[in-house]
């Protein structure tokens, strides 16, 4: 039974590992505080919808929240902050920005009580000190099913100088997290944020590659209806239609849009011919859900790249 709600992707990692920056790259806007020292916020759950924000107290009561007062939200009394906004990435999935682990002034309970909500995790680890025991310990405590729906982002990768060193770091991290994540991506999120229309910079930042993988995960979650199957008789969830009033215009969301187009394009599969029957068999798979346009032009180079990326990603994950 495919999912009938949007998949929830949690953003996790040690404090100051680039979680908030990642969130901002995903959203294309900057709603969250981005600080070197630990940001003292409870988990922030972001969903698509007309602007609205509230805090969910530990007492089970929702309180209105003015986003200007975000910094004043109390860790002691708040379970999480819920923000609805028309950010384009949220048309595809919900995001949960978790507080950093290993922060001595933040009890792990603060994120532990929200962890069960996540379907997949984007785990940020700082390139210069990538993948430490404190991270490994926490990640091992998460359900194993989550691993194939989670990505490890090695952030601030631009701080590792030289191709040789870059390769070394990635090699070690890949070895250490073998089987713990669907894939490992080196990224420079600051670069990704600055990229704007500069596509070369965007690809160079590593954001493009991980976007494709994230897209895969979001849709696999929907298709498989795991870990939480959809409701009986309801259609599988589809992205919200785009809205001109949207804030954000994140590059990731734009890639998602293109990837959606490709995904919804009919796929023609030729089955191996049976010799005996002498008949020709040609089957066409029907577009799923509310299909996109049946004809896709591949004149757009970027889109072509994206398609290749995706194919590459698929073959790797098999």
């Amino acid at each position: 039974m495919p999912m009938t709600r949007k998949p929830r992707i949690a953003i996790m990692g040690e404090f100051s590992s680039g979680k908030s920056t990642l969130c901002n790259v995903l959203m294309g806007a900057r709603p969250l505080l981005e600080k070197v020292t630990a940001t003292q916020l409870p988990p922030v759950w972001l969903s698509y919808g007309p602007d609205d924000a509230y805090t969910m107290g530990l007492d089970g009561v929702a309180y209105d929240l003015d986003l200007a007062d975000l910094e004043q939200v109390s860790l002691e009394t708040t379970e999480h902050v819920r923000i609805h906004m028309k950010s384009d990435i949220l048309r595809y999935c919900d995001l949960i920005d978790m507080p950093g682990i290993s922060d001595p002034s933040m009890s792990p309970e603060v994120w532990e009580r929200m962890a069960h909500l996540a379907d997949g995790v984007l785990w940020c680890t700082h390139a210069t000190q990538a993948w430490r025991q404190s991270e490994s310990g926490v990640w091992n405590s998460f359900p194993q099913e989550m691993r194939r729906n989670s990505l490890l982002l090695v952030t601030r990768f631009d701080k590792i100088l030289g191709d040789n060193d870059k390769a070394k770091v990635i090699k070690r991290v890949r070895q250490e997290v073998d089987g713990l994540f669907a894939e490992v991506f080196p990224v420079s999120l600051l670069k990704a944020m600055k990229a704007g229309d500069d596509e070369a910079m965007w690809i160079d930042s590593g954001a493009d590659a991980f976007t494709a993988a994230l897209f895969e995960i979001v849709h696999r979650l929907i298709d498989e209806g795991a870990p939480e199957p959809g409701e009986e008789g309801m259609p599988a969830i589809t992205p919200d239609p785009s809205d001109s009033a949207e804030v954000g215009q994140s590059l990731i969301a734009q890639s998602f849009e293109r990837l959606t187009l490709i995904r919804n394009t009919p796929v023609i599969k030729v089955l191996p011919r049976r010799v005996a029957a002498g008949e020709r068999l040609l089957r066409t798979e029907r577009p799923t859900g509310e299909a996109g346009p049946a004809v896709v032009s591949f004149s757009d180079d970027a889109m072509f790249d994206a398609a290749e990326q995706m194919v590459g990603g698929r073959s790797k994950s098999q």
Partner: protein
Amino acid sequence: MGLGAIIQDDDPAAEPGQAVQSAPEIALKRNFPGLGRIADSIKQFEDVLRDFVTMSDGDTSKKVTRILQQVREVEPSVTVIGQIKAGKTSLINSMIGEPGLLPTDVNPWTSVVTSLHINTPSPELNVRAKFKFFDAAEWDKLVSNGGRIGQLAARAGADEELEKLRLQVVQMREKAQARLGRKFELLLGTEHRYGAVDDALLRRYVCVGDDEAAGADQGRFTDITKSADLYIERSDFPIMLCVRDTPGVNDTFMMREQITINAVRDSRSCIVVLSAHQALTTMDMALIRLIAHRQSREIIIFVNRIDELPDPATQVPEIHRSILDTLEKNNAPQDIDIIYGSAHWANAVLEGKIDEMTDDSTESAINWTRAAFADKMDSWSAEQLVWHASGVPALLESLGQRMYEGPVFEALQKSARQALNLAQSLDVVDQVRILESDGQLNRTMTPQQLDAELRKIELGAVEKLTHLTDNVCKDFTNRIDQSYERFLERATNSLIEHLQANGEDATWHYSPLGLRMLLSSSYQVVLKKMHGIAAEVNNETAVKIADLYGKTFSITVEGFKIETPVVSYIPPPINLGQTIALDLQVSWWKGWWQRRRGYKAFAQDFYKLIRAETDPIINDLKTIQIGLFRERTQNTLRDFLQEQRELLMSALASSEISMEEMKELFGVNAWEDRQECLASIMDELGIYAE
């Protein structure tokens, strides 16, 4: 506490118009006022002792030379600890001014505790590098069950972690076998010595081997190497110093952590290296807790890698506030010095390569120097600015200050008191001679009688010390046992209350902080008492010996007293801060929790778990630490008694030599000079002895 950058020294070498020197030279000769002060005070003290030697007879001069030797061997030491990849090794390289000395890498690299002895003569001729391998027992302990961490994991039921450790152990063993042959175990317990230090050598012994790296020899002995000692001469370094590099903690390769934790004990001063982009994590706090029962003067925090901050001028104060906040919330010792900097910048200056830094790094450096050294922007060269921005001069200054006030001061004090007692006894003998020449001397004791008197004092003192120590230890043991039981009871009760109130599904967190504080305060109390006892017995003995001088020669010399010995530094118990499965490994605790069902099971298992966790800590305190204290105080007393016995006996013997003979020996004028000299030496030594 203060930002390191605020420590600015007016710097004579920094005058404008200074001739162009090669960059490393400028950097290193420039700024060691703290270390220089240590060098000066040691040298001045040595001068006094040398004066003493020139005026002494053969026997005395031997004794003074021995003290002089002791002073020359003062080697203050500092251990650098921190998480993996915080930049410990780079920082050490920049501190000693040899950027490439210890090998570094983008991946965790250091895996052996490496002691760099700067300007310390090697104990063996022509040996510049010494690598010690684990002995068979240590190796077995490490590989049989993963050491202490393995035991922790096993008790907490952290199966995955335990499995991981087991795999690591198997790999380690296989790697050692592949690199060293099947009989690698024969190497255990031995050591390798070399006459020179070079990069390839270090890579063989202290670096994690990387299979694909060029040298197949890399990391060849690393797995079984326990410690490395390197002897390095740096003429620009004013003192002898030992700097210890340690493998980072929080490595997924958990085996090395225990080695680091043990190394912390060997040095009095510790530098905790943090990474600026993530200041003070729970892991860093655990490290600070580990050393927190030291005096705060012995801890320096160095926040490294500020070169990676885009805007250090605004970010550093933010980080500073947050660190202070965290330290305060966690009851860390007050007044820890926090210094901000970048080993990367320091090494760039030392290599004369500040032009080759990346744009980001250069911009950060400019941004930081503008904020921290605004007043020097015009007068300092770029090298000077970057060197100071690196925080390394401030770190050395702060370190020098601590060593000056701590170990160096104590070492000089100890030696000064010994020398003073020696001078006092010479003075007494001289007085005796004067009296004798005036015909007023009444020698009341034979050597046999003196020996008997001394024996009486010795026996009495040792007995009293033992007796008092025994009492204190008994008190301490009772106290700790009682409060330990109370802690366990309280914790278990609180667990049951939690279960009654919240049911079994809500995970319960119990902080071992209470127990740790309890143990720590009991330890402080016993430490104080022990020092009190030692002082009491030593003082009493000193008075008795002074009396004995009077009795021996039937004289009273004005102002004569015996200096009491200093009980030498006792390293604090490392175990006190040691992590308990509960407070570090969140996941272990959760696993434990999920596996329990039923109130009874919870309470009983919890009691057992905590007991197993804490018993070694308690036992360590009760036996090893108290034993150490007992041994140190007794040795101090015994050495003191021995020294006084020699002095008194030889005073008695040498007073047999008459004034006439002395004058013949030295000449009349020389004799009077000697008296004056002795008086002035005693004055000078008095300054150090206080």
